[in-house]
């Protein structure tokens, strides 16, 4: 990994937190629950790269192309010309699987290997500098055993490390959990982890983003409030610190209420 060079994230505030961007050549796990903004963050990264003359490819396995395109079309960073010119490529891995004659729902070891080869070939042929796989969770879901998943993830890690591009892997986790991946292996092949979560403030969910790990970069670990809007895509602002105080207080109140309930039950008995 070339530690001196960085690859801008497409989000000004995030670049500032990581001394300019992701270290070139690194693999970053973008983890969060459904609706946390993973796909938007990845797309913003690809379109930003395309504007800087860095070709990108987005491999999707969770959403059909038309649906994915429809969802990003509304953002100001989206530019159809960049898609038409081949600077941003969106590829449905399920279609490739079908063309390879693979079972699209369940992969064998060989299937996974072929898919990985195809992925590498496409990235090399297009000479991409920015790569996204959305999502590693859905990809691994098609593998049948834990050993196969582990083996596949390590092979993927090795392949990505050899490619000359900076990769974002999205990872699905259940809501309100501080966990980075479904299979708990994905983080070991990653050089960086971006954790997209949310906090509950009086019943409203506020999106958050935190850089948990970023090898080769002096980065901040501050928790940010994340806003997604059509005009500006993803924007960050340091989360007001009293939010944590609020949720700790809430937990304390809930726990003391539970203990009061228990005591009351005892008295009644």
């Amino acid at each position, binding site marked *: 990994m070339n530690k001196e060079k960085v690859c801008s994230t497409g989000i000004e505030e995030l670049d500032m937190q990581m001394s300019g961007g992701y270290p070139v050549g690194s693999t970053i796990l973008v983890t969060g629950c459904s609706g946390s903004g993973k796909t938007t963050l990845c797309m913003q990264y690809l379109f930003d790269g395309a504007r800087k003359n860095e070709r990108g490819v987005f491999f999707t396995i969770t959403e059909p192309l038309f649906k994915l395109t429809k969802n990003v079309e509304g953002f100001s960073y989206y530019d159809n010309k960049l898609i038409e010119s081949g600077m941003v490529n969106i590829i449905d891995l399920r279609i490739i699987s079908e063309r390879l004659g693979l079972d699209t729902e369940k992969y064998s070891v060989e299937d996974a290997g072929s898919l990985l080869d195809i992925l590498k070939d496409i990235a090399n042929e297009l000479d991409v500098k920015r790569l996204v796989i959305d999502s590693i969770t859905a990809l691994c879901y098609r593998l049948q055993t834990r050993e196969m998943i582990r083996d596949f993830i390590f092979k993927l890690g090795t392949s990505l490390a050899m490619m000359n591009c900076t990769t974002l892997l999205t990872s699905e986790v259940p809501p309100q959990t501080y966990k980075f991946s479904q299979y708990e292996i994905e983080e070991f092949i990653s050089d960086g982890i971006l954790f997209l979560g949310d906090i509950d*403030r*009086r019943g409203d969910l*506020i999106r958050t983003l935190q850089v948990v790990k970023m090898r080769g970069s002096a980065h901040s670990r501050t928790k940010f409030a994340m806003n997604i809007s059509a005009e500006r895509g993803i*924007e960050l*602002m*340091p*989360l*007001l610190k009293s*939010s944590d105080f*609020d949720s700790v207080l809430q937990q304390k109140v809930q726990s003391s209420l539970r203990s009061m309930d228990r005591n009351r039950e005892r008295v009644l008995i």
Partner: protein
Amino acid sequence: MVDAVIEGLKERISVAIKVNQSVGIQVPENRHQDLLQALFSFMNTDKNEVWTFVTASNTYKNISENFKKIYEDKNIKFIDCISRSSGISTLEKECNYIESPTMLEKIILKIMNIFKDIEHDVEKFLVIDSLSSLVIYNDSEIVREFVSVLMNKARSYNIHIVTILIEEEVDTHKLLQMNDKIVVLRDSFIS
């Protein structure tokens, strides 16, 4: 009597804001509308002056019904923090809406985005109406932090800031302390 209070207020705001970066105004509930009238009248039609008005006390619809005649030719951007959370569906194009007054970081982002797009040589002003309304929806500690962050940002972008506080609604002292100047409007006089 009302006119005299409004004129008095206009003068006090004018003097305070010229000298200070941030002005906190404490007002009794029954004088709140007079204060808004004074503020909207004080704003200039000059294009070299931009105001952003954040409302958490009244809906934008309500403000426009009551004061549009006073402010319509002035350069004001509105941010409404309560219409959406109150389930009011009539949304006006000229206003920015925030889903909920609990989304304080989003309010800061919206404010800063408005000012970022404005040229450097234009005078920038921000009104927060009101801190006491924000405290209804948030813990007072987080509202203090919100004000502190906002003031720091305002200073670095050279934005004059006016924060309003309704005296009956909260313990007023802590929230106004951060201002350079505090104007207190009582029922019949200004101190």
